[in-house]
């Protein structure tokens, strides 16, 4: 597998240091994380909120420094790359951030934002770029007329789709999607997932898919890594991990997935009502 991996992360360690007024604090967000993603595969990274998924992804893309470990992309040592080759590599690796609003320039219109990569990497300009932008917006379920809007004029899910369109515009080989479909209604979400699957089949697009919705992960991912407190506790093919989880935390996660039917006795609503009633129940029995 090592030979064919497009992305390989080894022993990654990320420490966030904040210099406070009186004290310096350091949080080790990622500790000894290793994984590989073969071309055309989708690796889902799931786990506790705050366990280091975003930190690991940002470090892998060299958006934040890491304290230990190595990252290779298509055989290239990413962390050692000089600025110019790194700039060229950025075209091949794209990212959709968890927080779509702060990642979109508020002073630019949607059309400019989505075309940004095309212009920066000199892939298209003028009418060709506009046509590409319009077709991408359509593919993510947005109105091509939205190109004239500013980010603040969009709903949460519309912003998220602008960020997805921007990332796909440059036809990347690898894309990091950090909670990138969580603000979409399920029909739009299905449309975006189908688009990703199509790109995976047609262009062997490789994905690192960070998400909390395990049903979505089950649909889109081929591999999964489960993280807890900065470390990967279990990893493997999606069917294997989800059907026969070995780690306690993976089982806890799978058991906590929301019910898909309100009549399910495990629904919180029913349990709450039950817990509220015992006094009456006990009195009746006596």
């Amino acid at each position, binding site marked *: 597998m090592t030979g064919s991996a497009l992305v390989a992360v080894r022993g990654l360690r990320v420490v966030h240091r904040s210099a406070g007024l009186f004290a310096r604090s350091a949080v080790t967000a990622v500790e000894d994380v290793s994984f590989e993603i073969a071309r055309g595969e989708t690796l889902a990274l799931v786990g506790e909120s705050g366990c280091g998924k975003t930190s690991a992804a940002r470090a892998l893309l060299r958006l934040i420094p890491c304290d230990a470990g190595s990252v290779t992309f298509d055989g290239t040592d990413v962390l050692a790359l000089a600025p110019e080759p790194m700039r060229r590599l950025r075209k091949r690796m794209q990212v959709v951030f968890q*927080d779509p609003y702060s990642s979109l320039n508020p002073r630019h219109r949607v059309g400019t934002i989505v075309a940004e990569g095309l212009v920066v990497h000199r892939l298209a300009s003028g009418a060709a770029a506009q046509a590409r932008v319009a077709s991408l917006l359509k593919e993510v379920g947005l109105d091509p007329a939205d190109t004239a809007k500013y980010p603040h004029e969009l709903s949460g899910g519309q912003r998220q*789709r602008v960020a997805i369109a921007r990332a796909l515009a440059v036809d990347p080989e690898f894309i990091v999607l950090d909670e990138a479909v969580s603000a979409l209604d399920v029909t739009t979400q299905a449309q975006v997932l189908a688009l990703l699957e199509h790109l995976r089949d047609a262009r062997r697009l490789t994905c690192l898919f960070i998400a909390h919705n395990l049903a979505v992960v089950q649909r889109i991912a081929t591999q999964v890594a489960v993280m807890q407190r900065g470390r990967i506790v279990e990893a493997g093919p999606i069917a294997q991990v989800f059907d026969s989880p070995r780690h306690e935390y993976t089982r806890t996660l799978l058991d906590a997935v929301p019910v898909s039917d309100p009549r399910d006795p495990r629904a919180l*609503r029913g349990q709450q009502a039950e817990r509220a009633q015992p006094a009456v129940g006990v009195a009746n029995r006596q």
Partner: protein
Amino acid sequence: MTALLEVENLRVTYAGAQRDVAAVAGVSFAVAPGEVVALVGESGSGKTATALAIIGLLGESARIEPGSAIRFEGRDLLRLGEPEFRDLRGRRIAMVFQDAGAALNPVMRVGEQVAEAALVHGERDKARARAMAVAMLDRVGLPDAARQARAYPHELSGGMKQRVMLAIALLLKPSLVIADEPTSALDVTVQRQVLSLLLELQRESGTAVLMITHDLGVVAETCSRALVMRRGELVESATVDDLFHAPRHAYTRELLAAMPRLARPVPPG
């Protein structure tokens, strides 16, 4: 029972750069005290605009069209002055915003922001308010809450910021919580924990919840009634049981068909 919140023929228009957008096009519904109601629907259908209209936080580019009415606890919210509205917002209606990162004050420690909620709710003693804040952050599952309370929003992960917003809403103990995608960045175990806290508050304090979410599992877990929006209109209003088992509108059926469901192996035996 008289309604806590009544929205009647609500129409919200945004003045766009090119043309006006009718974000909400005549929506009517009511929420009873203590009721947990889901607001679901297409991305861009006007859910957040409806919520912002209720709490009076639509921006300057939006206008509420004549003929719209919003009544809350018997008061006509569209005729309320800003000082009265500000008072209502903290004490009677709390909102958990869709974009927690943008809603929190970036230059204030999160613990202080939660403590402010305790102060708004009537606590006089600052140290006690801070202690209440840490206790609530702990209850919403923030690990090492005493230390994290000293963090600034940018030092927290997406789901941690969401929990700070929830802690604020829970401490206010209002009669209505409007929660816009409150758990979209939480892992399922923490999600379960905060949803159950929200239901606890609903039972103990009689708080009603308007839950805006794309996660139909969250709806099935927590809500008793659901409103479905599409293109600014309300296309269906039903009990959650009917929504899942006897959906009337084609769009609702489409949503249910597209709902991602986790397939688990059938246990042996």
